[in-house]
């Protein structure tokens, strides 16, 4: 009698929130760099936070764009944390000096993630189209450490780094980062346009993940995370007893600068606007969200023994490449 995802989950646990698509960088893989959307005033942002509190959604992660471009970021975060929300963000680190770090701490941020794509400074700068960006990113890690804020590091795995991810882990150790997120490459925005140059082949993804899972199991001084359902068939993968497949539209939703909700940042389908539509109506009844939660095996997934845990892999990638949620993840090597 309790077969639906929403029988247990009355709301997502995390809102990934882009307050602004503005950014001072122009990275090759960015899903959002070419987006332009009206931004909300601080008062409306606070109204959204009130909705998240009422819906008991405990986590907000600010992404972007570069979150620090919004001067009211500290006020917004302080408003959310005062009401018990757990706030974190991802930044390119370029605007994060000692004073910004102190303000982040005071506004209650639980952790701050810095994006670093290569341990080789020249390669990182080139990928991010910004000379000096590596030095700024590691300087940001240092100032965050100085003020005592928990640091994480995010690296999007692509052709430039998949054979050198050990070096990224060593870099994280040098800066005493708590957790490294090895994000899987998404074919959205510039990531889609530059897919040929940046994305790995399915066989390369398999090789990468076999090694990354092995390293994760043997690493005890650093938390390594990669949230990619397509690895469900590999040894060493911990299945989640509560949620199979992509977590988008289930454990998390994505908020755009104008209050539009999408299942995740990589699926350009608006399911409603949080300021204008009833949240419960969206959460329980959105056809898009319900399709994502109740996928049906398509193509080679039909005969795959891993389908229950994998659910066809990353729904955003399937949708970007085939226009169909139910097609197999294009990264799948099976």
């Amino acid at each position: 009698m309790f077969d639906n995802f929403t029988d247990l989950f009355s709301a997502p646990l995390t809102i990934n929130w882009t307050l602004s698509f503005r950014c001072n960088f122009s990275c090759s893989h960015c899903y959002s760099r070419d987006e332009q959307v009206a931004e909300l005033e601080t008062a409306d942002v606070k109204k959204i936070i009130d909705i998240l509190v009422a819906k008991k959604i405990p986590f907000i992660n600010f992404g972007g764009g570069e979150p620090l471009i919004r001067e009211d970021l500290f006020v917004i975060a302080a408003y959310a944390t005062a009401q018990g929300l757990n706030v974190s963000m991802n930044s390119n680190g370029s605007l994060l000096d000692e004073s910004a770090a102190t303000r982040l701490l005071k506004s209650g941020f639980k952790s701050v993630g810095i994006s670093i794509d290569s341990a080789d400074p020249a390669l990182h700068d080139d990928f991010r189209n910004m000379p000096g960006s590596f030095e700024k990113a590691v300087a940001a890690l240092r100032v965050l450490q100085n003020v005592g804020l928990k640091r994480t590091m995010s690296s999007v795995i692509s052709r430039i780094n998949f054979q050198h991810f050990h070096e990224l882990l060593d870099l994280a150790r040098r800066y005493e980062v708590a957790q490294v997120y090895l994000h899987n490459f998404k074919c959205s925005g510039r990531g889609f346009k530059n897919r040929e140059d940046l994305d790995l082949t399915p066989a390369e993804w398999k090789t990468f993940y076999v090694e990354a899972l092995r390293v994760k199991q043997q690493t005890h001084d650093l938390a390594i995370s990669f949230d990619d359902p397509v690895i469900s068939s590999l040894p060493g993968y911990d299945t989640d007893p509560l949620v199979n497949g992509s977590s988008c539209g289930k454990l998390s939703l994505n908020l755009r600068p104008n209050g539009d909700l999408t299942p995740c940042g990589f699926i350009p389908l608006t399911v409603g606007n949080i300021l204008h539509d009833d949240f419960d109506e969206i959460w329980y009844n959105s056809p898009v969200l319900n399709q994502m939660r109740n996928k049906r095996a398509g193509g080679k997934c039909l005969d795959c023994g891993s389908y229950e845990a994998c659910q066809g892999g990353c729904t955003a990638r399937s949708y970007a490449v085939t226009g169909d949620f139910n097609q197999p993840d294009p990264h799948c090597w099976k």
Partner: protein
Amino acid sequence: MDYFTQRPLRNSDIVWRREQRKEERVLRALEEGEAVDEQGTVLLVVSGTMHQLNLVGGMIWCLCDGTRTVDEITAQLADEFSVSRDELESDVREFFDELQQRGWLSYV
């Protein structure tokens, strides 16, 4: 200190949510005689990993705010489920022991 006079307190690093809609449905199912032991009603996020507690576990968890003694919590549950305290005591103790072992709970 006597176990029954200790006040259990949830680990404040654990983020949790009582799923009231589910709880109401599980209570109705229980009244209709269905097995609901496996049904979660409280979600916990512990160091990034999700867990769920069933109806009884979830109710106990919600009461562990450091103001109530084990004795009071057990009495409240006995009242809620119309069973005797004796029937509950060992289960409640087992539950507290497990949570304490996991570091999810301490006594104040």
